[in-house]
């Protein structure tokens, strides 16, 4: 071999070693792979003869609402308490739908799969009907703690009368206004008692220089490109619009066929035209909206959860130490009545794909883990963290530690995965110190008293499942166009007609068919 071909060979070898190095890395990234090979046999053995001392191995995929994957601090403790070996696969919530769909398409969902929200749940309904996930309804009674889950909420998550999911509970109605109380006080304004006062407040916050810097640089309401979790739906329910669907002449009809929906659109049109809300709200992301609020440019943050006041307050007082926030949700409609739309009591659910959970014995082992998660001990650990480090107990309530960053890093990732709610899993209620937050908790209870439920939450429409999200886009586009003055009432009705022709009419019929039963 001469020198030249030696060089050739060497470079070829180098290329290969680089390639193999890369693939080696891949394996390492996918840490679960070697463990997985080992456990395949392990779980089989466990299912054949369940030995309590052998920890159940569970792989869990869930959305992550923070920027970093949490360290194993909490996980290790949970494993000890539940006799499991857990592998958490966290994926950023922003792109979770894509991850969910691509994993699903390739049949690589893990044994425990968290969805993202109600919308992803509706998308998965068809696959549940196809039998791609385990039905767990009949098994719940075998587990004392899981059996405590609220039947009315479980009912909302049923598909064709069968239960496939466990739910992560949330207060039924958390929406309301988070507003600058210091501004309101300065201008002598009371929290708005009705929609007219709400408009007046937006006007005053814009025109009367509430921050006292002599410039007209504030807006009343800050909103974002989101009709449901932004301001629109919340204000809409104050106007008396039904929650997504309502009864009209004994028939179910979509919300946008009710006059109150138009009233709401007019409200926002007026507010935007006059400059009482951010002009570009249809293109504003949540981050941008929150930034506007905490940088002191806007006075009211509507929609979303009133419990967010803690985070907003934290960032706002960094910029304006004298700022005071408060919450409010009792805004009467033109008819003087209070109303508040309600979610179906869950914000997310857990599924068990048949492609990953091989048999019922394995499913039961996994459910046993969730059963333990619903004991106060485990629920507190996952929701609040480690006592003494992340929280302390004061008057039987959990008081989060001052180091919010630590909690965010180590606990938040697990917090959003706890099944049930404080009433069912026995975890501590939170001890709130911020007056606005304490007020928010009171308002949550008030909201439920005037709560409006979505009558279709437990109903099923095949057309809605397959095309509903796509069709809804027609309506939300039209709503924005109406608010921005691009189309008028007739134009909006034309879009509603298009919605009906492209499948909406079928959805109406299908819902009404099951509604009457």
């Amino acid at each position: 071999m001469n020198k030249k071909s030696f060089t050739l060979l060497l470079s070829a070898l180098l290329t290969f070693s680089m390639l193999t190095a890369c693939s080696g890395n891949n394996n390492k990234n996918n840490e679960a792979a070697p463990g997985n090979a080992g456990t395949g046999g392990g779980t089989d053995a466990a299912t054949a003869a369940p030995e309590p001392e052998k920890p159940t191995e569970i792989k869990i995929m869930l959305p992550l609402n923070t920027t970093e994957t949490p360290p194993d601090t909490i996980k290790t403790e949970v494993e000890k308490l539940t006799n499991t070996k857990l592998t958490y696969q966290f994926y950023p919530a922003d792109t979770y739908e894509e991850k969910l769909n691509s994993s699903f398409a390739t049949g690589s969902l893990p044994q425990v799969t968290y969805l993202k929200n109600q919308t992803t749940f509706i998308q998965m309904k068809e696959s549940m009907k196809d039998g791609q996930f385990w039905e767990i309804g009949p098994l719940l009674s075998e587990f004392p703690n899981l059996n405590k889950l609220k039947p009315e909420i479980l009912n909302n998550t049923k598909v064709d009368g069968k239960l496939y999911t466990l739910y992560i509970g949330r207060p039924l109605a958390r929406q309301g206004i988070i507003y600058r109380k210091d501004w309101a006080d300065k201008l002598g304004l009371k929290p708005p008692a009705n929609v007219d006062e709400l408009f007046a407040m937006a006007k005053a916050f814009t025109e009367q220089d509430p921050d006292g810097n002599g410039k007209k640089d504030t807006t009343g309401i800050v909103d974002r490109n989101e009709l449901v979790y932004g301001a629109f739906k919340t204000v809409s329910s104050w106007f008396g619009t039904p929650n997504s669907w309502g009864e009209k002449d004994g028939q179910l009809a979509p919300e946008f066929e009710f006059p109150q929906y138009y009233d709401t659109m007019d409200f926002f049109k007026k507010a935007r035209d006059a400059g009482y809300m951010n002009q570009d709200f249809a293109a504003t992301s949540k981050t941008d909206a929150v930034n506007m609020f905490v940088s002191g440019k806007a006075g009211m943050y509507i929609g979303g959860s009133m419990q967010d006041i803690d985070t907003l307050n934290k960032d706002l007082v960094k910029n304006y130490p004298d700022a005071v926030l408060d919450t409010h949700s009792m805004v009467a409609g033109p008819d003087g009545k209070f109303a508040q739309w309600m979610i179906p009591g869950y914000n997310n659910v857990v599924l068990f794909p048949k492609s990953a959970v091989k048999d019922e014995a394995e499913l039961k082992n996994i459910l046993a883990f969730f059963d333990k998660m619903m004991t106060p001990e485990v629920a507190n650990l996952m929701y609040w963290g480690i006592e003494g480090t992340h929280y302390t107990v004061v008057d039987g309530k959990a008081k989060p530690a001052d180091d919010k960053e630590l909690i965010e890093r180590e606990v938040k990732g697990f917090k959003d995965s706890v099944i049930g709610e404080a009433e069912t899993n026995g975890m501590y209620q939170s001890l709130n110190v911020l007056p606005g937050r304490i007020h928010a908790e009171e308002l949550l209870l008030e909201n439920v008293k005037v709560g409006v439920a979505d009558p279709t939450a437990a109903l099923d429409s095949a057309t809605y499942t397959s095309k509903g999200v796509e069709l809804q886009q027609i309506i939300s586009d039209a709503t924005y166009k109406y608010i921005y003055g691009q189309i008028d009432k007739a134009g909006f009705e034309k879009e509603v007609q298009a919605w009906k022709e492209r499948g909406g009419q079928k959805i109406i019929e299908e819902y009404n068919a099951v509604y009457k039963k």
Partner: protein
Amino acid sequence: MQEVSAQPGVVPELKPKSYKSSSELKKRLWRNKLLYVMLLPGVLYFVIFKYLPMYGLIISFQDYKPYQGITGSEWVGIEHFQRLFTEPDFLNILGNTLILFGMNILFYFPIPIILALMLNELRGTFFKRTFQTLIYLPHFMSWVIVVSISFVMTTMDGGIINELLSYFGFEKINFLLSPGWFRPMYIIQIIWREAGWGTIIYLASIAAIDPGLYEAARMDGAGRLRQIWHITLPAIRGVIVTLLILKIGSVLDLGFEHVYLLLNSMNREVAEIIDTYVYTAGLRQGHFSYSTAIGFFKSIIGLIMVMSVNKLSKKMGEEGVY
């Protein structure tokens, strides 16, 4: 590497003649075995990442259910393609895609060429290098950043451009939400981010031009512009055509991320393109077969375009890409 190519017996075999017997072929193969070994990673890459995935195209003819897999899912024929072509918005979406593509070719494509010619005329090396680096830089920013920067600059809620407009007594312009501004914004962002990067290949091919040609032209009294027109441009014509063909191949592939970030309810009628439609109608609702069918359609159009443009360029006396 130069050493290797200088070795007699390796280079001349780039154009193999037909061999009389298979034993001779074998001998030749064996003699160049190291070259073939080096070829292997490349071949493997294409087989694994480009050819094997084509198997997945099958699901565009199926009602794909992940649990049942490709082998177990039901066949539905061309139902998904029919759905695509009968979709009320289909023509609009296809039109939007083609218009954006046309603007790409018309407004973006010549800019790197012009930039490269201009850079080439710069004499001071330091200045030239600095300028070149500066126009490269935006390429390394993600679309999210580029779009966020333009959001902050153009928003009506305190964006600098609108503040300036109103300061000078003009009406504020709703850049972000008006359908009329979507296309200009799109193309300006592309030019800002990519133009500098696009000059690289042109600069490289300009650098390969024999300086003797310029000297001769100068002797004959040609000025700067004459030199550009008669020497530089003809010399890089081949590169221009090749890049144009490659660009046309990706006709329906405008980059999902960029458009999706600019898309909103108010400009959907001009901004919805095939890529974003695949995402909203297909992937987000889990209609895998449908999305695959759209992707398939896109690839076929791309293939047809490349082949016809390639043929055209050969007719016009250029080399083409294959």
